[in-house]
């Protein structure tokens, strides 16, 4: 199936637009596309008429030009007829917003539309979903634009079984300054499922990290998913819901009781180097980190800070999640010390964590980062930056970002996320260094890369 018309439509039709109810989901969708997106859109309603000075088409086949994507928001029992119009017209694909299928006892109706689409090789998303969000291009969400938090274009492709989780995650991504290449809510996933979108996003040049919210896979579908994901060069992050459900069937063997559904899920993901996020905070941190550094590390962290307390807290968190904070060799310590300014040379603490003290200036960070960048005992740098320290300039991010370019070692920073530090934060982010808003978040950003390693 060709997904291009679904995700990159030049023209759309919205079926179900009401002439009397402006709050109808189809109207919300039609209005936002008509007013705000660079896509030609046609309203469709069997009654015809005129809507907002546009002709309302009685059916898909009345529309004069080609239609790439149809958004179907009609009553469930009318969906098969609308779908068959789309197929006859040669529409490229559809998003079926309508509910009233398998989720409410009408698996038969859902199977009928899936069979029609399969037969015609016609791709559709849904039913019972929000559909597609393509930043700056279009979206099919029946939520008014002003109510949405809209991430910028970016490199994360996100696929969610739940529309609610998707919209909420868009808030979290935006808070983190993380952009999306594409977001898709797949709802009942009657036809297009996680693995189909994994395959599509793997080939999509705008996508660097592929993230999923999964409630469950179909029979043997998990196996196909991990085998495909393991062969990709792009990191795959999965947030799984339903961790505690043990399945309803009677468990008569030890193995079945010890290897519950979620235990198997988590262990198999680790086996294949697919990054499992255990909650939405991890999901956000992992996507941010992997969108900058899409690769695996062993997890030996060099910590640099201007506060002994922050160094100790970060070390505790690292140890807790299984990252190492190794001791530094005398040679590395001597190299750092030689590069420090006279002010702090005798007071800085050069174990790991490295505490440069509140008197440190930009050049001291450069000396420490540069030496750790070459130190074989660490494969990742964690910088805890407290901007109250007067010697730190807003150029620091740009000055330190060369480390990754020169040594390949990822650098992750923590800077408190308040408006007055924005210039400092952007100095890192615009130079491809991810910045966390908490110490925990920074440690998770490191952990993301460690979890890319097949266990």
């Amino acid at each position, binding site marked *: 199936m060709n997904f291009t018309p679904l995700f990159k439509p030049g023209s759309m039709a919205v079926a179900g637009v009401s002439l009397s109810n402006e709050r109808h989901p189809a109207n919300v969708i039609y209005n936002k596309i008509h007013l705000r997106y660079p896509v030609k859109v046609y309203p469709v309603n069997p009654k015809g008429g005129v809507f907002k000075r546009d002709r309302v088409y009685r059916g898909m086949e009345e529309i004069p030009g080609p239609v790439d994507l149809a958004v179907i928001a009609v009553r469930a029992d009318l969906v098969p007829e609308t779908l068959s119009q789309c197929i006859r017209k040669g529409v490229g694909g559809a998003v079926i917003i309508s509910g009233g299928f398998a989720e409410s006892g009408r698996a038969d109706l859902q199977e009928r539309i899936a069979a029609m689409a399969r037969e015609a090789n016609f791709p559709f998303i849904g039913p019972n979903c929000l559909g597609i969000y393509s930043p700056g291009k279009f979206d099919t969400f029946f939520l008014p634009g002003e109510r949405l938090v809209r991430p910028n274009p970016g490199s994360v492709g996100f696929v969610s079984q739940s529309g609610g989780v998707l919209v909420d995650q868009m808030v979290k991504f935006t808070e983190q300054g993380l952009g999306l290449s594409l977001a898709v809510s797949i709802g009942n996933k009657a036809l297009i499922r996680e693995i189909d979108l994994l395959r599509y996003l793997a080939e999509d040049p705008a996508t660097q990290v592929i993230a999923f919210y999964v409630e469950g896979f179909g029979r043997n579908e998990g196996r196909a998913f991990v085998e495909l994901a393991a062969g990709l060069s792009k990191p795959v992050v999965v947030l799984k819901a339903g961790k505690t459900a043990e399945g309803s069937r009677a468990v008569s*063997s030890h193995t079945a009781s010890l*290897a519950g559904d979620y235990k198997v899920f988590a*262990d198999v993901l680790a086996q294949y180097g697919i990054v499992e996020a255990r909650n939405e905070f991890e999901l956000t941190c992992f996507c941010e980190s992997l969108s900058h550094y899409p690769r695996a590390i062993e997890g030996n962290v060099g910590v640099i800070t201007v506060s002994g307390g922050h160094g100790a807290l970060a070390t505790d968190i690292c140890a807790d999640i299984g990252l190492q904070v190794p001791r530094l060799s005398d040679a590395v310590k001597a190299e750092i010390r030689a590069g420090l300014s006279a002010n702090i040379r005798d007071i800085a603490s050069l174990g790991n964590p490295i505490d440069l003290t509140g008197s440190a200036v930009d050049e001291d960070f450069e000396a420490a980062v540069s030496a750790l960048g070459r130190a074989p005992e660490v494969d990742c740098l964690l910088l805890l930056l407290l901007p109250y320290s007067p010697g730190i300039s807003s150029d620091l991010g740009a000055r330190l970002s060369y480390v990754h370019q020169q040594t390949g070692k990822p650098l992750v920073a923590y800077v408190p996320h308040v408006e007055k530090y924005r210039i400092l934060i952007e100095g890192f982010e615009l130079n491809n260094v991810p910045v966390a808003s908490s110490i925990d978040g920074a440690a998770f950003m490191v952990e993301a890369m460690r979890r890319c390693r097949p266990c």
Partner: protein
Amino acid sequence: MLSAEMVNVIAAARKHGWVLEPEALRLLGAAGVPGPKFAWAKSKTDALAAAAGIGYPVAAKVVSPQVMHKSDVQGVQPGVPDAESLAQVYDRFSRLPGFEGVVVAEMLSGRELIVGAKIDYQFGPVILLGIGGTAVEIYQDTVTRMAPLKPRDIESMLSCLRGSRLLTGHRGFAAVNIPKLTAMMLAFSDLVMELADRIDSIDLNPVFCSPERCTVADARILLAPLA
């Protein structure tokens, strides 16, 4: 490929839905998953003869299609010291429901592990390895991998167990034989892949691992309902 013998064992077990221990041990042995020296004795005379051949002390276990969980009915007697005791145990077991004889097996020693397999709905055949013993359900120190296993999967399973040091040597306990354990896991994984459409789950519990060998002491194979 499944041998004719293995296919027969499975076919014969159909009527119970699970494979009796001596048959399961025989099937595993044929697949290269080592079990103890044992005999399936269907008379007291046979039991005594088998024990004399194996050497006391022996383990005695009831064989009955009506008894899947043998210890629930006191159907397992480890450390039987001599012929007289074995005769008594035989008499006691023979009164259990569905009695079809006794497994007489050599006593094993070493670290207790649990090895298992199940056909997972989402991922198909998966293999489990865990620290065994009576507290297995309490500590739940287990790790699962999708089959078929590669040697590096077994290495990673061992390192992921919280109790991995129990296997690699700790406080006077010598390390278990990791190459033998690896070979056993790989052979088991191959067997599970062959049996994937016939089984629901397999428990090898316990598996005894010592510095010399890794041996399945008890095995239970639950068959999948016929489609």
